[in-house]
């Protein structure tokens, strides 16, 4: 009895050792696997490291969806294959993953999180023939094999703000952000600018939850905004799903960003600024295939189609609001509207 664990463990070790011997033959059955590439024409191979999960309806999902779109456009897994590590919120683990992918000879390795930049800066020089990309920023470290990408999130934020100001009856809007910096801050500043340009009397209240994951903090922030009179809400990062749940229950309107959040609450989600990273990815892949491995920074925005304001088809948006939004979009594209963001 007392020896049981020992005996068991020995058995397991034995099993592991024995199976380890013939496992090489079973390995290639795995679908998108690094080692299993003896296809006749070599597909373009992408690896991506992401902080949250691929189905977060926010930052990570926007990249995952984009990769799926690129894969489809390029002609399926035979032409382009990709692997991913999601849930890599530990910066150090992400670094190990990036290095590992690089040593496996991927053509493009995407570090999808601004917290990964520092690690990339260490790793990229060791793999001069591999192309790396990271975001969101414009900093390529001056390295010839590093691309950078970012989203002009203030543009869609501005458009959302225009619509929100027109739809609000109380002239109070509520914004829920994670921590007050980067992509989130740009979106919020754009939203405020759009709202106030549309209606100078509108009041935009902003709360930051201090976390990207605290769903219940986001929900209570939504409750507080509603108690303070807001009848239109917006927010950014993956924890806003909590706020959307509250908005749905209290029947106040919601504007999304990063990914399409309409499915969460079809009755109250008005529109989403959706990131289409495929615009940037396609350019990068093209450059890599023609021998340029990096050194360039990309920005997705409304003009280049990397950001699209997608209206929720199930929400009955008044025509004048939609017209105002479309005008704003056109003006931003034409450069008639310039949105100031804190630098």
């Amino acid at each position, binding site marked *: 009895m007392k020896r049981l664990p020992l005996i068991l463990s020995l058995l397991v070790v034995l099993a592991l050792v024995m199976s380890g011997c013939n496992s090489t033959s079973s390995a290639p059955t*795995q679908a998108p696997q690094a080692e299993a590439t003896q296809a006749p024409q070599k597909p373009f191979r992408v690896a991506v490291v992401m902080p949250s999960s691929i189905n977060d309806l926010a930052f990570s999902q926007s990249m995952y969806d984009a990769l799926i779109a690129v894969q489809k456009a390029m002609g399926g897994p035979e032409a382009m294959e990709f692997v991913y590590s999601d849930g*890599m919120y530990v910066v150090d683990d992400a670094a190990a993953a990036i290095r*590992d992918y690089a040593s496996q000879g991927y053509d493009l390795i995407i570090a999808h*999180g601004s917290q990964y930049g*520092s690690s990339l800066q260490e790793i990229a020089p060791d793999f001069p023939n591999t192309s790396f990309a990271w975001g969101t920023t414009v900093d390529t470290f001056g390295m010839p094999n590093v691309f950078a990408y970012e989203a002009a999130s203030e543009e869609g934020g501005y458009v959302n703000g225009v619509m929100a100001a027109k739809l609000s009856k109380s002239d109070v809007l509520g914004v829920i952000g994670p*921590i007050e910096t980067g992509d989130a801050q740009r979106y919020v500043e754009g939203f405020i600018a759009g709202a106030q340009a549309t209606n100078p009397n509108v009041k935009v209240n902003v709360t930051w939850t201090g976390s*990207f994951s605290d769903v219940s903090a986001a929900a209570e922030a939504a409750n507080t905004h509603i108690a303070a009179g807001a009848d239109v809400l917006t927010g950014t990062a993956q924890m806003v799903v909590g706020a959307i749940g509250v908005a749905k229950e209290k029947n106040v309107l919601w504007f999304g960003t990063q990914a399409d959040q309409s499915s969460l609450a079809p009755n109250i989600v008005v529109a989403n600024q959706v990131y289409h990273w495929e615009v940037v990815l396609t350019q990068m892949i093209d450059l890599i295939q023609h021998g340029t491995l990096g050194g360039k920074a990309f920005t997705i925005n409304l003009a280049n189609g990397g950001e699209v304001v997608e209206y929720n088809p199930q929400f009955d948006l008044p025509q004048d609001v939609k017209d105002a939004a479309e005008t704003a979009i056109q003006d931003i594209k034409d450069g008639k509207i310039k949105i100031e963001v804190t630098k």
Partner: protein
Amino acid sequence: MRAWLDTLIDALLPLAATLLALLVGAVMLLFLKVNPVVAYKALLVGAFGSTNAIAETLVKATPLLLVGLGICISFQGNVINIGGEGQMIVGAILGTLVGLTLTDWPGWLVITLAMVAGFIGGAIWGGIPGVLKAYFGVNEILSTVMMNAIAVQLMNYLLRGPMIDPAQAAMASKIPQTARLPMDFRLPRLVPTRLHLGALIALILAFLVYIFLWRTVWGYRIRAVGKNPHASRYAGINVKRYVVLALLLSGAFAGLAGVIQVYGVNYRMITDGSSTGFTGGAGFNGIVAALFGNLHPIGTIPASILFGALLVGANKMQRVVQVPSALITALNGLVVVFVVSSEIWRRKRQRRRLSSDQSDAGGGEGEDAPVQESPADEPQPEVQG
């Protein structure tokens, strides 16, 4: 010979429990339609398969060991420190400040000063709950949980505000990170991998903590207070002071782990808004490592390596068979539960041994967890058997 075998079996027990947990994990993998053999092979290769893999494992083990050493001290003193995450952060903040301020000082001096600063930072963040416990009756579990949350917000505030990388401050992306430390402020690498001097420092400290706990008066008193505060008070020990000392030192080692993570791995502080982004959860996992190591500094060394290997290998497994990272987290939980449950067999064996030959009992290694009873009436720091 016989004793040697006993020790070996004791040491193998956690390993066996780990394997048992992985066996349960294999069932989970089968449900995910993943071949467990392929998956676990990837885990092994990822943790030990190459020089680089071993180095990564040791890099991962370093903060676990350092936090674990602190945990050894506090748990021996019967104070529960679950504030390792916050202590790592505050240590790292102070240590990073040193490097960012003294930019034209020689590297070796800055690194040394940074470590001292990190040690102090962690000591402050651990010492506060210590003082609160000793003098205000505030339970340390409550205060350390709260202090973790406070440290995270402090870090977010500093890194997006006063301490932000000037280059990032000028860009719209405004990544919440500090400037990168100059090249010569980096901890030297031991081999051409990411393995840095910090691993060696942690190793040396493990022996120093062992000496501290079992060969110095302070260490003896911390343990005595941990075993029986009432008896210690009668023996004239200032119990409150040693409660503070235990938490303070515990925090200090976590702070050191934080600063070494900055100077050895990341070369700057970055936040993703949570503590785990920076610490990798070492503030919690270090507790587990220390308990795997039976709250003994030397035992914590292999325990940290085992746990580090598991974390590194599991990430590799995620990449090779494309399982969600959630499975890895669940698996880690199972390993912890199984290992901590296996302790009962070690204790039973130990008791049998003690009853069969009660002549030369003792020795640091056979020591039980402080949560176990047994009065503290040993007169002297005992001699190692």
